[in-house]
């Protein structure tokens, strides 16, 4: 690694530079340059066709879709809120109707109950009255039957008295006795 080794090389480099000029030393070469411009152009076209165009289209499509779906979601939200309000209103009316119905029904029930009670009372009263009249009649019948029996009894007693030939006094007393007896039995 001595400097001596490099001296001829450096000299030749200088010579080459003098002969060919600095541009050639850098390696500038016209066909290469044209080739690289073509390379770039080809790459530009290929990437445009295979990368930029489809991908930017896809990106646009996606952002459009996202925008759309967000709008959709917003709309849906609005609709949901509306629907909720509607449902709430409907529920409210239904509740009111139900309450009215219940009130009506209970009123009607009260009325029915009242009517039933009245009817029952009337019927009971009728029954009681009939029973009383029945009892009255039966008692009257019984009283009649008793009186008839007493009369028979009195007649028989009289027959007996007559057969024993009682005096007038005791006759009367007997009859009276029988009559009072009958009366107390009746009373």
């Amino acid at each position, binding site marked *: 690694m001595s400097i001596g080794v490099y001296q001829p090389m450096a000299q030749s480099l200088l010579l080459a530079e003098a002969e*060919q000029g600095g*541009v*050639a*030393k*850098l*390696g*500038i*070469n*016209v*066909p*290469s*340059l044209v*080739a*690289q*411009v073509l*390379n*770039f*152009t*080809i*790459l*530009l076209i*290929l*990437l*445009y066709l*295979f*990368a*930029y165009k*489809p*991908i*930017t289209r*896809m*990106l646009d*499509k*996606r952002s459009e*879709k996202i925008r759309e779906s967000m709008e959709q979601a917003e709309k849906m939200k609005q609709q949901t809120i509306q629907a909720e309000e509607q449902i709430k209103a409907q529920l409210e009316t239904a509740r009111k109707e139900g309450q009215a119905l219940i009130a009506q029904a209970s009123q009607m029930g009260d009325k029915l109950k009242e009517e039933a009670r009245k009817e029952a009372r009337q019927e009971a009263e009728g029954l009681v009255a009939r029973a009383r009249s029945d009892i009255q009649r039966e008692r009257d019948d019984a009283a009649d039957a008793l009186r008839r029996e007493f009369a028979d009894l009195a007649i028989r007693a009289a027959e007996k008295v007559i057969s024993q030939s009682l005096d007038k006094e005791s006759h009367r007393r007997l009859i009276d006795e029988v009559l009072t007896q009958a009366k107390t039995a009746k009373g």
Partner: protein
Amino acid sequence: MRKLGCSPLLLGLGIVIVLLLGISFINGAIGSKFVEVEAFKFLRVSQPHVSLATEPIIPLFGDHDANPLFSASITNTILAAWITIVVLVALFVLGTRKMKLVPKGLQNFAEFIVEALLNLVEGVAGKKNGRRFFPVIATIFLFVLFNAYLALFPGFGAITLREGVETKELLRAANTDINLPLALALVSFAFVEYWGATSVGFLRYLGKFFAFRNLLRGKPMGLIDVFVGLLELISELVRIVSFTFRLFGNMTAGEILFLIVFFLWAWGTALGVYGLEMLVGIVQALIFSLLTLVFAVVAVASHGHGEEGKEH
């Protein structure tokens, strides 16, 4: 220490790394001055041979030695550029083959790249102009980036062709051939001028550089306009040179740095340089594409102020 002892895997890895560092140091240019180990000699990295010009692989016409400027051949950098093109196109063809609204796998990756670039370009140039500039800007970015990164793949420069005593690499990082940065710079220049001319009108755009209008109307102060126009013209043309040498210089310097570092101490320092080169690759791709974008934005901006001045 206790933790290291508990993990045999980590310990083994550490030993391997230390061994690799040691062996590569012994075989490097620095280490071999201290110790010579015959057994490892086959691992020695040969002295780097740096050539700024690329090497022709398949000559087409013209003698390369006699006429280096016009002789045509398929060089190793053109091959590398083709590989880059094939890789890029394959990536996007596979990624966009069956496009779905809900992306998956490779489509996701392809979309991520395009979307990130598109957002960048639209952020700088606005929606309408961004869509117009985007294909060129993105292609510059991807081409430069993939040229740089593919060259970092292990084995990329390892295939050599032997020609007598000389060997030449079959593939060489495309960015390190000055023709590619120059081609990109020319393309960038051409597109910027085209966009500028179509946006503000061809004659008006030319009037920016050749501002003779006020001078012809007999206003002596029009000389300033002429001078400013010339300055604009020169700066426009100088961009080609600066674009070219920025990319070419950075990439070539990286390649040379690699060669030297591998020659000196193959393992110890190369890893750091590797990381650095990854960074340089993306930075250069960003610089090239974003500068083109900024120049394009400046070019399409209507020169309202200048027009007003001329109307008075």
